[in-house]
């Protein structure tokens, strides 16, 4: 039986089953080439052309002879078309009996997407059984969906940032934040049917806790203070954390100095209860400035009211720790139960009468 003759008679079948085959005779010339491979090589009818001038085998080792190629039968080969050295292809070689040469079947390998574009291949250039088309489809579909996913991620990220800036809650303590408190104060100021009080609270010795025991201890203290505020407020009142260790409390239907004094005293006492954090006791106190808005009076605006509370706080702080002061009053009331809290520090400013100053907010003693 003459293998060459039989195979040549089946040439159409060979073309259809292996459209990228290259049949190389023992003389190293092309006996037959599949139509897709011929299209890729682009040198017209390949029959009779020297095969190793068309392809360059690189892996597992450079091969340029039929016998050497036959020796690699069945192995996966890495090669390029000599005219397209940047497009890595893969192939398998099968040696034929009766000195009929060797058949090399090529595939596009991982460079399929580039190769299809570069060689202008169409659906008809592939066997219906070849999954390269499905790979191409997937490749393209994945690019499209990845783009969609990236768009979605970008939109979500934008929405998250938006939500963060619109958030009304302090993430650490769960209390309202400055934005929410400002809105609430504005509402309260506009509602002339109700009087209310604004307490500005600043923690004493907080910096010491933070510096000596670390930020986690400081955070524990802040959470504890938030808890204290929640416990002492009625439903409808509002507490906010508005700075590192600064809080604002809005108390509705209360402008009586004595009652507010009692509330401030209770808050200071509750803040002074030592907090245990990992076996260490954290001791702090609080200073409070109070501003009231009665229904009959001419009402200040938001900034004016906060400045009033701030001025009172400054007065309380100047007098020492653990004290509260009412805006417009002349006394600072000491209510700390802890002796160490009461003493004035050496570099504290001198005690005395105080006046409200708009720019009091910045240079405040700790």
């Amino acid at each position, binding site marked *: 039986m003459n293998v060459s003759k039989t195979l040549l008679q089946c040439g159409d079948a060979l073309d259809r089953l292996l459209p990228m085959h290259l049949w190389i005779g023992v003389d190293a010339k092309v006996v037959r080439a599949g139509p897709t491979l011929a299209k890729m090589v682009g040198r017209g009818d390949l029959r009779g052309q020297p095969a190793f001038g068309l392809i360059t085998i690189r892996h597992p080792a450079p091969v340029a002879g039929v016998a050497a190629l036959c020796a690699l039968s069945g192995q996966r080969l890495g090669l390029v078309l000599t005219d397209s050295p940047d497009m890595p292809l893969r192939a398998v070689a099968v040696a034929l009996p009766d000195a009929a040469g060797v058949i090399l079947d090529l595939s596009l390998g991982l460079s399929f*997407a580039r190769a299809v*574009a570069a060689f*202008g291949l169409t*659906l008809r250039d592939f066997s219906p059984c070849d999954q390269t088309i499905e790979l*191409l489809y*997937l490749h393209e579909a994945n690019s*499209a969906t990845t783009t969609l996913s990236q768009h979605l991620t970008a939109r979500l990220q934008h929405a998250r940032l938006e939500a963060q800036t619109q958030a009304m809650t302090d993430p650490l303590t769960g209390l309202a934040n400055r934005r929410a408190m400002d809105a609430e104060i504005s509402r309260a100021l506009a509602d002339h049917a109700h009087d209310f009080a604004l307490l500005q609270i600043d923690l004493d010795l907080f910096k010491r806790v933070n510096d000596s025991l670390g930020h986690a201890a400081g955070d524990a203290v802040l959470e504890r203070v938030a808890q204290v505020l929640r416990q002492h407020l009625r439903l409808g009142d509002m507490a906010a954390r508005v700075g590192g260790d600064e809080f604002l409390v809005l108390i509705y239907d209360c402008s009586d100095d004595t009652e507010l004094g009692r509330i401030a005293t209770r808050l200071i006492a509750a803040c002074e209860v030592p907090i245990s954090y990992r076996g260490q006791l954290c001791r702090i106190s609080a200073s409070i400035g109070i501003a009231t808005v009665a229904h009959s009076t001419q009402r200040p605006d938001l900034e004016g009211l906060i400045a009033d509370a701030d001025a009172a706080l400054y007065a309380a702080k100047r007098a020492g720790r653990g004290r509260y002061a009412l805006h417009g009053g002349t006394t600072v009331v000491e209510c700390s139960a802890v002796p160490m809290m009461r003493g004035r520090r050496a570099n504290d400013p001198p005690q005395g009468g105080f006046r409200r100053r708009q720019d009091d907010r910045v240079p405040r003693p700790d």
Partner: protein
Amino acid sequence: MHGMVNRALQGFLTTTYGDAVWAEVRRQAGLPFDDFEAMLSYPDAMTTACFGAAAHVLGKDHATVLEDFGIWLVTDHHLEPVRRLLRFSGARFHDFLHALEDLAERGRLVLPNLDLPRITVAQGDEGRFVIDAVWPVPGAGAILMGCLRAMADDYGTLAFVGLGRAADDASERLEVQLFDAAFTKGRRFELGQVRA
């Protein structure tokens, strides 16, 4: 229903009829948001409500709106990827019709929860095809009719596509008659996409 389908409907209504129409459809369908997200999933009832609201707002019958939607899916230049992905199914319109049976699987290859219609194709004599589609939302037949009419043009094939009588309540039927496979040159399709 996958957001891809819902988002496509939104895209069809906004690019064809404008934002105001979409806003009214959204309102009538009772959507609790402004836009569908292509990569999220939504209850089927929302999709059905949008189909119904679109027909009502546009004053057209249900099937006409969905057929237009199907045509738009294949022809709008924003959705060139969809046309391309469909063209991967076969070299001729005839092959493309047979490959419709793979459509749902093809969709899942890309997005595992993309629920495209399950399609069965039966070829009769002399270029006749009967195509049945099963989908959780009513309207697959009309949408597919639009897609097939547009794809026939894309392949340059002369074909008649019409709604048929469904075999059962769960499916919708299309009847296709091919006349001339090379009626026009059709649109170009190259496997390797030439990127700008």
